[in-house]
């Protein structure tokens, strides 16, 4: 990230290793214990993190774009997102089950995890910070339209909003509506307009100008 001072002068806190959050020491101790007891190999956690941060919303976008151009694939995606992901060569990751939810003319889904930050990481990568924030988590289930407005999404009153709270084993991926004006686009160009936020259900894909 760039940091433009615009020529002005102001003090910055020095970069320090002291004062790390107490949880960091606890995590290190836990890691050591798990390795010592043979539950984990020393590099397992790093490998898992490397895998996780290598996932991006581009993976989910490929599924959505394919679903837009291929109705039979869309049916398979809505039936079993894991099988559909494997079909296009994506790695749906370990255990959690992913359910794809289709947005239509009359129904708009948006996803939240009020208890923590459950998210379809295998297909979208790590969640954005706002997804984990208390305001989003608490307001999404009490005033979804207000939250959507703040994201710039104004839905017709006839559209029912379904806020899906991923409270347990299932991870949810929204299949947004294909915008008008994209009839001539191929699958790759379509995938490029499917944003992370549109697959969480807080944004709508926009046709390229």
């Amino acid at each position, binding site marked *: 990230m760039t940091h433009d001072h615009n020529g002005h002068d102001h003090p910055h806190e020095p970069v320090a290793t002291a004062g790390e959050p107490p949880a960091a020491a606890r995590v290190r101790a836990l890691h050591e214990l798990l390795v010592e007891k043979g539950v984990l190999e020393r590099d397992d956690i790093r490998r898992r993190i490397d895998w996780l941060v290598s996932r991006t919303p581009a993976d989910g976008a490929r599924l959505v774009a394919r679903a837009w151009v291929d109705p039979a694939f869309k049916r398979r995606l809505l039936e079993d997102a894991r099988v559909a992901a494997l079909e296009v060569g994506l790695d749906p990751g370990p255990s959690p*089950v992913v359910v794809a939810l289709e947005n239509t003319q009359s129904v708009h889904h948006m996803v939240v995890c*009020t*208890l923590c930050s459950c998210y379809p990481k295998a297909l979208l990568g790590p969640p954005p910070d706002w997804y984990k924030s208390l305001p989003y988590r608490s307001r999404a*289930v*009490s005033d*979804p*339209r207000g939250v959507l407005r703040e994201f710039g999404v104004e839905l017709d009153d006839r559209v*029912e*909003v*379904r*806020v*899906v*709270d*991923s*409270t*347990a*084993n*299932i991870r949810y991926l929204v299949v947004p509506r294909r915008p008008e004006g994209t009839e001539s686009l191929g699958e790759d160009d379509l995938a490029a307009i499917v944003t992370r936020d549109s697959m969480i259900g807080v944004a709508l894909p926009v046709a390229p100008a």
Partner: protein
Amino acid sequence: MSLAPGTTVRVSTRPHEGHHRTPGYLKGRQGRVERVHGRYRDPETRAYGGDGLPERELYLVSFDLPSGDRVLADVFEHWLEAAE
């Protein structure tokens, strides 16, 4: 217990100490079964090193919002009661 989609249910308000996956804002609320996800190990014992057995049925349940919109959440069978 196996509940068919469309069944009206109420989320239990019983007190529970410790880890569970039923959010407080839904306790006592009446909802409707939308989907049956299948059986999963119980997080309430898994969280403490247990095996999570017996597996519990997990349901997607919908709850009405005053705006006419809905909240859908996954709720385990042992947190659902028959609605009067």
